[in-house]
């Protein structure tokens, strides 16, 4: 077939995976490993298997799983440096040399198609073998497939087989509700292979011919309880999936909460008149301590990078749609504001802080709540797509800030302590209301529902419940005194840890 005379400047690459032909041989998996030198323990593509039905009306349904080359790719939006990017021809490609290893792309991908390569510590995934396509060759998986179940083609070329199938045959995509507009189309796929929660997770750590990968960060595949398919469906094969973010992200929300809350709590006391505008607590202690916690926050964030030495790329080549990049600037500006505040205090210009504090306070609020947008950008994690998250983070910030400020006040401004304890009680109350609403409202998706089950269930329940109980203890601050501060800080870490981990505990692929 000759390309049309008036062909567009760029093709629009898409793939069709014809599951009605797929024989589950895994050739695509190993051809991909070979072509792209993919190490053990991670995969760019693999063949999931689900046993559907009951004997003798049963089948083994296969699902070839990989990056969907989304038209609206959440990974490219979330990537703070542009290491994940969409080419004009629709391929979502990546540049490892500028990947800082923040894993925001992994948190964002609703298909769990991205991983950190243990060799080079950078994010990678299927890129349609862009290096082959640009050389005029089909991707390795397409070439190897014994039964021609995989096809690549140009959606702009009506003569291409892929365009014909996509436009004329019943095809489907994975998780269209994520509004990513995938360009990998499935023909003849069973829903139990496309929906990660449709099939039951086997007991005993087994699959039909392999074992379920273990380890702490491992995300179990298949539904551990009540699968979403009412056809009998049992997951028979899947690969390793790891949660991108660990305890450091939970800890970072706490330290960042302290950093922002300290300033906000002190500011609130000043406005309320409980604290003098010239009190050392306001002039020096609160901003200095906030700056310290902000520095700790930065250190935690950098230590969480797979490439900590490249952290500066966040600031030198930011991709400004990314809330990780935006957050870096917010934190930087807030840090600068705190420095200005301190400088003003030390140089006796504290009087001008009346005028400056609203700006610094706004940056503190931004620092406290931007994480809500960052989490929401993790499109994969339904639990985190909550509009309540922003006010909730603000409440947590006040809780953390008042808890730490109370300790400082005990030393520098004992008179302010009772007010701070009441602030701690009020913010703990708000936090518990948000947490309670989160836990009791009906979540709209099976994913969020399962995440919540995991949060309060066997796996993360101890953290979540500790968080709730200790928050209740903090609620009693006016009566139990300063001990509530410790309770509040531990409560917040525990709760956040359960929340962050449970959000990532739901299988996506």
């Amino acid at each position: 077939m000759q390309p049309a005379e008036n062909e567009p400047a760029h093709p629009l690459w898409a793939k069709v995976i014809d599951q009605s032909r797929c024989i589950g041989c895994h050739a695509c998996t190993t051809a991909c490993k070979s072509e792209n030198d993919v190490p053990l323990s991670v995969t760019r593509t693999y063949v999931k298997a689900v046993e559907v039905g009951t004997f003798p009306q049963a089948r083994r349904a296969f699902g070839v799983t990989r990056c969907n080359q989304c038209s609206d790719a959440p990974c490219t939006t979330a990537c703070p440096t542009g290491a994940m990017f969409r080419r004009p021809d629709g391929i979502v490609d990546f540049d490892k040399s500028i990947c800082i290893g923040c894993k925001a792309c992994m948190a964002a991908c609703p298909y769990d198609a991205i991983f950190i390569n243990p060799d080079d510590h950078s994010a990678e995934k299927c890129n349609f073998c862009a290096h082959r396509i640009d050389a005029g060759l089909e991707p390795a998986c397409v070439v190897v497939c014994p039964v021609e179940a995989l096809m690549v083609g140009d959606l702009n070329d009506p003569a291409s087989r892929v365009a014909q199938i996509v436009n004329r045959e019943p095809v489907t995509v994975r998780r269209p509700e994520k509004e990513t507009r995938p360009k990998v189309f499935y023909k003849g796929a069973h829903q139990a292979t496309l929906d990660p929660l449709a099939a039951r997770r086997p007991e005993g750590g087994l699959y039909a011919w392999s074992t379920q990968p273990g380890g702490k960060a491992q995300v179990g595949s298949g539904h551990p309880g009540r699968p979403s398919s009412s056809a009998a469906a049992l997951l028979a094969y899947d690969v390793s999936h790891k949660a991108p973010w660990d305890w450091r992200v939970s800890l970072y929300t706490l330290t960042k909460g302290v950093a922002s809350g300290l300033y906000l709590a002190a500011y609130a006391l000043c406005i309320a008149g409980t604290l003098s505008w010239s009190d050392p607590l306001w002039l020096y202690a609160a901003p200095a301590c906030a700056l310290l916690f902000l520095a700790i926050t930065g250190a935690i964030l950098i230590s969480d990078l797979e490439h900590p030495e490249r952290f500066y790329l966040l600031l030198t080549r930011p991709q400004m749609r990314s809330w990780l990049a935006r957050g870096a600037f917010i934190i930087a500006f807030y840090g600068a504001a705190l420095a200005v505040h301190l400088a003003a205090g030390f140089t006796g210009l504290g009087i001008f802080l009346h005028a400056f504090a609203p700006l610094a306070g706004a940056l503190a609020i931004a620092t406290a709540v931007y994480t809500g947008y960052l989490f929401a950008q993790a499109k994969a994690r339904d639990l985190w797509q909550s509009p309540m998250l922003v006010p909730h983070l603000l409440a947590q910030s006040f809780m953390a800030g008042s808890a730490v400020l109370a300790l400082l006040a005990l030393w520098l401004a004992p008179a302010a302590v009772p007010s701070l304890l009441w602030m701690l009680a009020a913010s703990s109350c708000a936090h518990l209301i948000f947490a309670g609403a989160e836990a009791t409202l009906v979540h709209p998706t099976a994913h969020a529902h399962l995440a919540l089950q995991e949060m309060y269930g066997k796996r993360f329940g101890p953290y979540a419940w500790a968080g709730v109980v200790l928050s209740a203890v903090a609620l009693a601050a006016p009566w139990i005194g300063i001990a509530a501060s410790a309770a509040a800080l531990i409560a917040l870490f525990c709760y956040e840890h359960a929340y962050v981990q449970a959000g990532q505990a739901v299988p996506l692929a």
Partner: protein
Amino acid sequence: MNGSHGRNERVSAARREVEARGETFYPGASRIHLAAFPPKERWDDWVELDSRSWPERREHRYMLVPTTCFNCESACGLLAYVDRDTLGVRKFEGNPEHPGSRGRNCAKGPATINQVTDPDRILYPLKRAGGRGEDRWTRVSWDEALDDIAARIRRAIVEERENQVMYHVGRPGEDGFTERVLAAWGVDGHNSHTNICSSGGRFGYAAWMGFDRPSPDHANARAILLVSSHLEAGHYFNPHAQRVIEAKANGAKLIVIDTRLSNTATHADYWLPSVPGSEAALLLSIARHLIETGRYDREFVRRWWNWEEYLREEHPQRERSFEVFEETLREIYAPYTFEFAAQESGIPSATLAEVAGVVAAAGTRFSTHTWRSAAAGNLGGWQVSRCLFLLNALLGAVATEGGVYPNAWNKFVPRPIYEPPHPKRWNEMTWPQEYPLAMNEMSFLLPHLLEERGGSLDVYFTRVYNPVWTNPNGFAWIEMLTDPQRIGLHVALTPTWSETAFFADYVLPMGLASERHDVHSYETHDAQWIGFRQPVLRAARERLGEKIRDTRDVNPGEVWEENEFWIELSWRIDPDGSLGIRKFFESKNEPGTKLGIDEYYAHIFDHSVPGLPERAAAQGLTPLQYMRRYGAFEIGRKIGALHEDAVAPSELEDATTDENGRVYTGAPPVRGPNAVPQPSPRAQDGRRAVGVAIGDRVVRGFPTPSGRLEFYSKTLAQWGWRKYAVPAYIESHVHPNHLDEDEMVLISTFRLPTQIHTRSANAKWLDEIAHTNPLWLHPRDAERLHAATGDLLRVTTETGYFVVRAWVTEGIRPGVVACSHHMGRWRLSDTGQRQLSATVRVRSQDRRWTMERTSTVRAYESSDPDTQRIWWNDVGVHQNLTFPVHPDPISGMHCWHQAVKVTKAEEGDVYGDIHVDTASAREVYRRWLSLTRSASAHSPDGTRRPYWMLRPLKPPADAFRLPQEPAEHA
């Protein structure tokens, strides 16, 4: 070749650019302008972009050198990407010039690179340093090993103990080279794995058409019936899967008979999960339907079946007319109603009726296949392939488009430089008198036969074969291999460690897919092709102008290849030529010197492959250069119905015709270039069988005694098995009638698409995908046992038990359990393959053996950083150890299915535990031996075996005569 294009310039493989340059565009599945492969004109120097440094465009220059996969028997083409700067292999892709695999591969093709770079592979010849099985080794030179082995073999030959030399091969992956080596030595020492693999399947086909394999033309079928799982297993996995799925897309109906939900059954329009062993009954009910409804090809049956012989031999009182035969046929199969088949198979009769309708509607476009599966599982399993082919024979779907061809017509074995005569002395240890009809050597009985008959082997080669692990009753193999009275010298020829190699005296490293020469041809479809396996670095470096002495110069370490090894060994056995051996390994170009590998293959490609010299010349290449460059050659396609070919008048001089219409001629044989093994009816009065008279024509027919398709096997009737002389149903040893109430049937033979027996554990990507073999159990049985997935179960066989985990699945019939056989690899110490094996402690007392795990697979440090990322710690369970031998009394096939008791594990049971009593295994052997009908008691003509049947090495007719004294154990 590409001089005009310059070197080292990156060009596009896309269609327009390629065609503008006048090169070859290889379209892929996408059918767009992207190519599946670089144009072959550029294979010498192809520039590709680095995937790792992407999007930086870093270039690499490759020479693309073809070879053939050495994993399963499909022998798919591979293209090695040889880096022109490092002269290492970067990767393996498919070979678009290969007619069978057409550029595509299964998971094992690309994973070949894992095998090549496996940090645990054997790189140097090793000699045992301690006792056998003590696992202590010292490195020796090839010279030392060769001299030692050669001296022993020479002595055995000189002392006329030549049959104490044995070569035991797994899947050969080559056509006849080593058989000819043995023939040159005069040794009847060929021992194959076939009787634990495909003898059951083969026997049924051989009974019908002489040829022992089918060549189904799936791509053009209207209905496909598989008693197999060939969308995922060898013979011929990838080539067949391509064509089955193609046919399905064109509307063909797929019927799959398999107790277990295979990936093949998944694709079936009709999945018939029948009771194990009932397959023949099920097939006969379909046959009955065709007969009863008259929906068979009357003309085909009349012309091609040996119905006249049947009536004459079995119903001499009846009129010898076709109508009477049809009536008799109806009588024979009347009992096989759908209701009867339903009762036997558990498949509802309505379903059977529907399926029978689909079969009938397919007419001559009906392709069928069985290979191991039921034919390898059951007593009388050979009747499964026979009953399956009966359907083709009824429909006339034999050698038709979309039907089934005899394999030999779709196979081409080019005649080699030398064809030494076959050995003169019969080997009783491989072809014992009790099994005169055995399709192949009674290989898996070797430990029993040596023990029972006081036999011994002086030199025993195991070649890429692992009987300790693969064969039933592996502990008896250890008993044999560690007994110096039985085995004088055991030489393991293998690329990688195996359970058998641990018990060898020499372990000699042989090359993998890209490190050895072989030529082969398989019946993947209605065509004839040859494939060439070659050491790709040798080919590449020679193309770059280097002179290579032998393949060891290019292989890793001192890894060699068998072709050169055998030539060298043969010279050392007969250095002065006095034994008459050396002459078969001498150069013809330079007499008196050693035959080189180039001359050997150049001779074949120059003289024995029609069309190849012309094709090569058109490109300015010699035939050998052509094969080194492209790796495969198609001799012809659409070979057609050769049985209808008229015999040339020149071949009919001095011809006679027997009562069956079989035509014998006195004309000298015509030696064509295709030396594919064929059965050969014994010459009559010095005349050879040349054809068969059908109507008024003399045509080629089939290489059976009657020249026709043998509905009736006079051979079976004459050798003591009259009741099975026509396709019939034999109750399996695991028929429900023979099971105790608490017994279940264990299906132990099924394959996974990503592993291949004992050969693929050295491929990390395959191990990562598949590394365990839990016991498939239906939920109903699980409930009865109070077992859930992952629970430990004890599976007790006749001779022992193993402890395994449960996989509760809807993919298996209630009352049946299944366990894939690839897994449970073990090693005795740190020596061995570490990516998929557990370390075990083996103990024995009074022939009671135990195996316990001391440690399992784990991450380890090696030259490959990936071994530190091994995350699995399960390797499955070695179930075959607990199976006694079950030799089918007719085909000789080991009948794999086991009647077992499945219980919850007992206290103290640990995963992977094995307990076996080899003394009781011997009793089971004796019991099955008693089912046989020995040649000494039943031979109709004083011979050991029907002469016409296939035999890998075929001694002259007088060696077939039974000894005068009846054999002691007959």
